[in-house]
């Protein structure tokens, strides 16, 4: 095998606005109530006119800046013309030659072991309106197709990468990093099930021949990629298909026009798609109904100020400032902005990043998972968790007791528990660490007296017997310091 895989991704992301790009209809995902979120504008009724949503442009700028794009001083709107039933005007308002952002990059980590990183170039990111949704008769009996225009006019930003990706895995990593970034900066929920993030992949091979020449194979655009796994599988499939095709036909980029194929997730294959327009001649021209947008340096500066720390930077900072492992930092960052903020608050106020990471990645995430909760709904506020961890740190309670308090806080019946509840629970449950030998001594003596056999076992060298004895004391006094109890036993039985 001697070829290089060349991949570029076109990612469509739905921007988090309340209303559509050019009208005041809701952008809510609402497939169960078709054609209830439309108006003359998004229905493309004769005489209706588009007016640009300020927030959509703002979120577009934020996205462009987050992927290190230039935001040109002048941008405009163009009509991309094709006929399809989900496109009622028979043109999509998009941006052609002067997009609102261009020439950026996104850095991905190729290998968590070596920490090797790579900058993926971004050609452009432009705003456009989404189409509606067609549903087809799957029975094959040629029944009518149905058209729902609820989604029609929803704002999208299309992010077009350079063909810098070299494997299906890289493509997936890029997409994951992009999704993480866009949810961090709060421009999109990137919900792939609801179609808020969709991806097309342009794939071909550069075949290295024995004579030293490199021949590019025809470019294939794979459509309908709506999961990370789908992106990876479709590209892997397509690479194999193209390699086989090349070996069979020897056809290169020059011989064949760009082909569009659809990913069939059920069958795990890409299939040739019939073109929407016989020849793809979109006849782009400037939309006379919309005014261009100009952006000043001051506005650009203001929007970049709004950007939070990018996830990649924050990941690195967590490793550095809180001495987190690569793994822990990644787990926390990948959970999204809110969890990372939660962690950071806990870490800062308890003063122990590693400990905070353990609790957040294990206890907090497990509970969120089990309860199907979002961190914003988590009953234990970060300052409360921090206070609890401080008590464990200060050896006021044991780790085990800490977990008991954690559970009690979770089950706190009256709203969100405050810091004072920690002490209440410790007192109620008698969890305070008891290391006062006077108090412990009599109980240890009583246990020794009651368990002649265990004592004999221990004395004959069976260490395990000691554990059972300690357990009895711990049951008696929940807050007993296990170290102190152990020492007392050894002293008494030796």
């Amino acid at each position, binding site marked *: 095998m001697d070829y290089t895989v060349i991949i570029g991704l076109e990612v469509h992301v739905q921007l988090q*606005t*309340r*209303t559509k790009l050019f*009208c*005041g*209809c*809701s952008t809510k995902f609402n497939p169960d*109530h*078709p*054609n*209830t*979120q*439309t*108006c*003359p504008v998004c*229905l493309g*009724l004769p005489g209706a006119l588009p*007016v*640009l*949503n*300020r*927030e*959509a*442009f703002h979120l577009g700028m934020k996205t462009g800046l987050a992927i290190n794009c230039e935001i040109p001083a002048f941008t*405009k709107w163009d009509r991309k013309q094709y*006929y399809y*039933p989900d496109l009622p005007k028979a043109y999509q308002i998009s941006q052609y030659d002067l997009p609102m952002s261009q020439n950026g990059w996104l850095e991905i980590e190729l290998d968590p072991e070596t920490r090797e990183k790579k900058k993926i170039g971004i050609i452009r990111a432009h705003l456009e309106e989404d189409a509606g949704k*067609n*549903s*087809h*008769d799957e029975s094959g009996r*040629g*029944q*009518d*197709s*149905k*058209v*729902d*225009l609820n989604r029609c006019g929803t704002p999208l930003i299309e992010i077009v990468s350079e063909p810098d990706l070299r494997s299906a895995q890289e493509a997936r990593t890029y997409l994951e990093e992009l999704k993480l970034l866009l949810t961090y900066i709060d421009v999109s929920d990137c919900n792939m099930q609801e179609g808020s993030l969709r991806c097309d992949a342009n794939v071909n091979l550069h075949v290295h021949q024995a004579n030293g020449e490199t021949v590019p194979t025809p470019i294939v655009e794979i459509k309908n990629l709506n999961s990370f796994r789908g992106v990876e599988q479709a590209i892997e499939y397509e690479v194999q298909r193209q390699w086989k095709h090349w070996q069979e036909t020897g056809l290169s980029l020059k011989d064949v026009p760009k082909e569009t194929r659809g990913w069939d997730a059920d069958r795990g294959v890409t299939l040739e798609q019939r073109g929407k*327009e*016989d*020849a793809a*001649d979109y*006849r782009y*021209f*400037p939309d*006379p109904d*919309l*005014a*261009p*947008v*100009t952006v000043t340096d001051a506005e650009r500066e203001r929007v970049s100020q709004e950007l939070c720390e990018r996830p990649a930077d924050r990941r690195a900072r967590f490793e550095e400032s809180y001495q987190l492992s690569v793994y822990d930092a990644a787990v926390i960052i990948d959970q999204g902005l809110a969890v990372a903020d939660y962690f950071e608050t806990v870490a800062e106020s308890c003063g122990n990043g590693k400990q905070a990471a353990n609790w957040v990645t294990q206890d907090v995430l497990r509970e969120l998972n089990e309860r199907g909760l979002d961190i914003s709904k988590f009953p234990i506020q970060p300052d409360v968790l921090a206070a609890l961890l401080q008590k464990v740190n200060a050896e006021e309670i044991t780790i085990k007791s800490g977990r008991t308090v954690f559970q009690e806080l979770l089950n706190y019946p009256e709203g969100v528990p405050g810091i004072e509840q920690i002490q209440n629970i410790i007192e109620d449950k008698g969890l305070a660490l008891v290391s006062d030998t006077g108090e412990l001594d009599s109980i240890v003596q009583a246990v020794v007296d009651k368990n002649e056999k265990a004592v004999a076992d221990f004395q004959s060298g069976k260490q395990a017997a000691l554990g059972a004895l300690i357990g009895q004391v711990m049951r008696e006094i929940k807050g007993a310091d296990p170290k102190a109890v152990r020492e007392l036993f050894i002293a008494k039985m030796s």
Partner: protein
Amino acid sequence: MSVSLSQDDVLKVASLSRLKLSEAEVNSLGQQMGSVLKYIAMLDELNTDAIEPMAHAIEISNVFREDELQTSLPREKALSNAPQTDGNYFLVPAIL
């Protein structure tokens, strides 16, 4: 600029325009478009290399609306002019 339109040219443009034309229409359109294009060719006299295109009659910029919800049409109004519906969706002949 080309000023004569062949039958093939006309058919290609008709297909892009989604217009089904009779043979007579193809012929007359070819002729009429040809004569208009011939007239239009007078613009070639002008050197416009240094001229910025003017897409709008009055050039303004930065016109926005706020991201505020407006009432949508009830479904029956949205569908009221459609040639074919099932009461919920617009219906079209099978796309696939």
